[in-house]
């Protein structure tokens, strides 16, 4: 029988040892009338079990009804990116059972493998962000931002005891998925989420932001590069938040940008969160990947999530262990900093292998490569008649928004081009705009094909204004 090793003879022997006549005797605390009868097919309407061959065939049939990024010249991002994933990662993290079939490292003596890689992961996030404390990872970028919001509230409760600050400000173009998750968390916590508009250059409108950052605000978050691909002036946000002692959070949608851009620590933010998918994690329709969470050490004891520390064993050898569990739900219960009980260890491991496999130099080259391709794509696509950049005057990293006309998507898909993500649904001002994403996987040929198909699709269309 699949996955069960007890034979009928084993079962008989075990029942005898227990001293009951049948397995069902062990379920007597369930009222008899509620116990499902296997003889009655209307109870528990599940299909008959399939063997490995049948299941494999079935999965291939399901996948035949799908297309993926590999089927197109692919230009969609918006939080999940079509990166190359080294085979090294799957060999270590997926096919070797040593990490994937282990549990949370509560017993450090037989979990040094996990604890060491988490410590190395934390160190890598520190290297990328410059912030001294990073946790062992969160569910995703969106919930990491929501957790940063909750942390901001807790910090403010300590710092501004009598003020009861209740507003969380999102400065400019934050990923709508992040915004929605923050709103869901804020609703039940009784917090207010306010989004400040972007200016013409795609960056947050500085004047509107300054106005919004009152003493009612406990934290402000800015995404950079933001959802429109534009690199924000994070330092300016930090400066604007200073007067009213507002916690500043930077969200990062494309972690590769950290290779080149001013670090969150250099910009002076308190907390940096982000989506880690682009670091060695497959797309999987958006998950699982992981969120990273790093902070200035001032807020260590308010931080959510698991944390690993170096320590020693009783013989003085270096060892690693979970630390600061007193913040967590299994000790603090309703007073915990968060209800989170898991992290996304395996996805964090993937990120670590990715970072190490590219290495210090390779990681920078990867980012530079992306910048070069992005610049080429901008020049190529904006040379199509009727197409221009939606935002000018501020730099972009791997994504940018073009202004064309609505309704191009299907025509491009027919030409095997998954062009930029249509932004029409994000408001009137976004009509005919497309968010274009570039990765190292994108080739010159892909970009040329996109430009060609776009030229074709734009023929006879009124020129965008």
């Amino acid at each position, binding site marked *: 029988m699949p996955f069960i090793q007890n034979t009928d003879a084993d079962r008989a022997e075990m029942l005898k040892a227990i001293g009951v006549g049948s397995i069902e005797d062990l379920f007597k605390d369930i009222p008899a009338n509620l116990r499902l009868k296997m003889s009655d097919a209307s109870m528990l309407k599940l299909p008959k079990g399939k063997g490995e061959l049948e299941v494999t065939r079935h999965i291939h049939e399901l996948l035949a009804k799908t297309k993926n990024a590999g089927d197109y010249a692919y230009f969609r991002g918006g939080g999940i990116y079509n990166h190359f994933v080294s085979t090294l990662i799957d060999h270590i993290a997926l096919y070797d059972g040593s990490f994937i079939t282990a549990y949370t490292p509560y017993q450090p003596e037989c979990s040094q493998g996990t604890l060491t890689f988490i410590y190395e992961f934390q160190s890598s996030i520190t290297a990328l962000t410059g912030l001294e404390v990073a946790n062992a990872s969160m569910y995703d970028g969106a*919930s990491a931002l929501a957790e940063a919001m909750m942390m901001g509230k807790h910090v403010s409760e300590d710092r501004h005891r009598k003020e009861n600050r209740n507003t969380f400000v999102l400065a400019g173009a934050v990923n709508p998925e992040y915004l929605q998750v923050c709103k869901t968390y804020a609703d039940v916590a009784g917090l207010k989420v306010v989004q400040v508009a972007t200016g013409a250059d795609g960056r947050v409108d500085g004047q509107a932001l300054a106005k919004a950052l009152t003493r009612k605000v406990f934290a402000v978050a800015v995404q950079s590069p933001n959802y429109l691909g534009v690199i924000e002036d994070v330092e300016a946000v930090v400066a604007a938040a200073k007067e009213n002692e507002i916690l500043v959070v930077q969200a990062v949608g494309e972690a590769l940008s950290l290779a080149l851009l001013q670090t969150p620590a250099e910009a002076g933010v308190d907390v940096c969160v982000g989506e880690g998918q682009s670091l060695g994690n497959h797309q999987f329709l958006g998950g699982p990947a992981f969120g990273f969470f790093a902070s200035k050490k001032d807020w260590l004891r308010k931080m959510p999530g698991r944390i690993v520390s170096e320590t020693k064993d009783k013989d003085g050898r270096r060892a690693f262990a979970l630390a600061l569990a007193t913040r967590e739900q299994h000790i603090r219960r309703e007073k915990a900093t968060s209800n989170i009980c898991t992290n996304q260890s395996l996805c964090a491991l993937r990120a670590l292998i990715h970072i190490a496999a590219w290495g210090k130099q390779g990681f920078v080259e990867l980012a530079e490569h992306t910048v070069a391709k992005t610049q080429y794509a901008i020049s190529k696509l904006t040379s199509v008649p009727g197409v221009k950049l939606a935002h000018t005057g501020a730099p972009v990293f791997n994504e940018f928004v073009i202004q064309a006309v609505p309704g191009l998507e299907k025509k491009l898909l027919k030409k095997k081009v998954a062009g930029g993500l249509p932004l029409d649904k994000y408001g009137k001002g976004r009509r005919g705009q497309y968010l274009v994403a570039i990765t190292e996987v994108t080739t010159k040929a892909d970009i040329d094909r996109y430009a060609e198909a776009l030229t074709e699709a734009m023929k006879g269309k009124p020129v965008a204004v």
Partner: protein
Amino acid sequence: MTTALANPAEAILFEVSKPGRRCLRLPELDVPKVDIKAALKGAKLRAKPAPLPEVGELDLVRHFKNLAQKNFSVDRNFYPLGSCTMKYNPKINVTLLSLPGFTKAHPHLPEADLQGHIELMVTLEKWLSEISGLPAVTLQPAAGAQGEMTGLMVIKAYFESKGEGKTRTKVIIPDSAHGTNPATAALAGFTPLTLKSTADGSVDLAALKAMIGPDTAAMMITNPSTLGILEPNMVEIAKLLHTAGAQLYMDGANMNAIQGMVRPGDYGVDVMHFNLHKTYSVPHGAGGPGAGPIAVASHLEPYLPTPRPVRNADGTYSLDSKRPDSIGKVRSFFGNYGALVMAYIYMAQLGREGVRRNGENAVLNANYLRAKLRGVYHIQNDKACAHEVVFTDKTQNAEHHISALDIAKRMIDYGIHPMTIYFPQPNVVGGQGAMMVEPTETESKETLDYFVVVMKKIASECKDNPEIVKTAPHTTPVSRVDEKTATTNPQLYCPMCIA
């Protein structure tokens, strides 16, 4: 760099790093080279490259393979960690998950390209609905704790729609509950009330009755309880809550025991969550990712997160976001879809008979251990247990001053991962250190017999050679770890990662 640690196998990645080494290289740039500073004009750049490790491929592989050897895992060790359901994770899960149809499935592909994925989600929802006896399911929560939160948010939205949002502020939680329950209730804006359990670990109906009032929003109950006991009064508990206009939430962490035997909806449960990483073989991944879908009664369905995968009348599939009463999103996109795929593959193999068989064998295995170790270790509630059995250190502590922790650490020397010892809390196991053992259905009788032999051996060591137990483990890469210093003086990163 590293002088203190000569063996590279003992070094961390940052210490084996050497400038110029690497594993991966890029293809030649096929577009014009750009000046980075000019291309990013207006952006502030980092002062120095991130101080990431530089390693060659062999050193990288060897590093992680060495780490792998320092881990216990289900693939190599019996792992009877109570409440965690460390069952075997079939290899086909990861093989099929590695198909490009999954790995390159981008969430912003048009709906027409996602038909097979949406179909998979709709089918998985249907299966979980059938097992729970509740009509609607969302797969979006990324973990059990997020499932709990989603469930309470849904309950809150329901009461708000009835104009009772302001008055129903309390959530009743038994003292035996997992710590996530009260933490979640607080996070969701409720006040948790602790309900004391009876001596045998079940719900005290009289105390519950006294606690329920017009301000009760819900009760969160774990069934089977965290003491591994089936709650005998589920139907009465549901009735008490419903009569008072409140909701019953069931924490499905222990669903492995009762799947296919009873549908929680038939008890009167209004919301429950599944832990697909426990019950349906999604690997635990050294702490995650998991997936924590919730199933709800029909009156709560309008409040589930969006988008909802749906099957249309013409047989096509869509993602429905037009749901005005929805609580919104709790996780970006569709949750941990990769985890959902693994659960789907597993459940397709189990089928109807397999689901039932898993529950039956999980309970049989746990009761077998209870019978075989009775008299060796104290059992607080020595009656038929569900999928796990809770022993305590009462005897060993009283006679030899040896704690559950010491016994757990000694198990490691015999190649068995320790059982759960930090939970349940001593106040619900008669003041003793708990030792919660969950063998799962996938272990053979021979493995269980070996476990019994080991546990008896350790019990006799407690008498004859207590030092060997108190100083265990002796066979691991590190001896007992100083966890206190990890907290009092945390060192959270390698000094080399700060440039």
